[in-house]
């Protein structure tokens, strides 16, 4: 289970918890989200833009 972060607003998609509001149950893999998934908080970054948190040093968002 991994976490993926929007590089614009800092929203984190956590595979462990999913996203109940958007209808993604706990355990939903990031890879299994729809291809047209985009950030539910800022809407200006899409699925390919998300950064796997393990791969970044600092999760702070560069707004």
């Amino acid at each position: 289970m991994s976490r993926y972060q929007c590089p614009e607003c800092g929203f984190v998609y956590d595979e462990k918890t999913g996203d109940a509001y958007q209808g993604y149950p706990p355990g939903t893999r990031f890879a299994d989200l729809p291809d047209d998934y985009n950030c539910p908080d800022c809407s200006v970054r899409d699925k390919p833009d998300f950064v796997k948190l393990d791969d970044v040093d600092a999760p702070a968002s560069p707004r």
Partner: protein
Amino acid sequence: MTATIPAPAETPYRDRKRYAWLLSVIAPLGAPAGPFLYMQTGDTFWLWVFLVGFYLGTTALDLLFGEDLSNPPESEVPRLEADQYYRYITWAVVPVLWFGFLYNVIFLATHPELAWYHWLAVATVTGSMLGFGLNLGHELGHKKSWIDRKFALFTLSLGFYGHFAVEHNRGHHRHVATPEDPASSRMGENIYRFATRELPGGFFRAWDLESERMERLGKSDWSLDNEIIQGWLISVPLYAGLVAYYGSVMVPILLFIAFWGMFQLTSANYIEHYGLVRRKLANGRYEQCQPHHSWNSNHIASNLVVFHLQRHSDHHAHPTRAYQSLRDFPELPRLPVGYFGMFMAAYVPPLWFSLMNHRLVEAVGGDASRINFEPAKKARLMKRYGIRDVASPVANTTTRERAAVEQAAEGA
């Protein structure tokens, strides 16, 4: 002998606009103030003065006070955004709007003696007040907390526009400045034609987005979890209750006011991205939304009554930034005055085109690939304004690169 002058102690940053934002709370009170003063004095002058004040008065103040180019230092932004004062004053507008709306519709329903033109003035100023409400719903609808978002829904429902938060955040922001976006206007498209695309297009996009979400949740489109239904659950009892109590006289009042309110939002959408377009990259995606994909206005008078909505370039590039920390950037497409003046210009299409088409061409360096054209008028517009098919390369700027540009802007 020379004296050493001690360096002045560093002055902590002070937001000069902190208390001026209260104007955004007070301004909508102009709508009920007219009927109130008319009832005190019997003078119909009061039914008109705030309507004229909203549009002509604010525009005159824009021309008088000009632009405010200042930005808060980036180091202060976390503190500004954590300061609950800015949040509470947005909440304070909600009861102002509900009071103003109810006061004015009841005034119109109980004053049948009013001449039709006085009726029209009061109905119009009330619809304009709903425009302030849509602006507030916009600011609150971008917030992440439950209470801000419910205040947004409660406010938007006053004008029967509860679907706006869904449409704006998940529809317009995602597709802004593309030919596919019904809420981004095209060069050569007048506001009335735009309205026929934007009003239904925005609603159905919102419905489709909620329908998809309900499907993922395994619920019916008509579930109470559908935020559009939640809005209707406020609007329908409100409107039906007013009609039931005051009778059919209330029907044209509510219809006109709700229409003028939503048309104010249509007007804002019309002017905010007129003709600007994000280009497609080789991978088929659109370039990321950048500050130059929105028209900006730094006019201080109008910005102070609309919670900085007119600093629209930063808002679209960074939608979760709060109103008090929105910035100006150099070399943005700039509106000649604030929204109130630009709305009036938009309502007279030849005036709008004469004001804006050459500004648009200058803003994009005469490059056709950076213009969102009304398709049927493209060839004519290119010839008339000397627009070229230069196909300049698209820079797919990364967030880090943009942050560098924006830091430079901060220092400017």
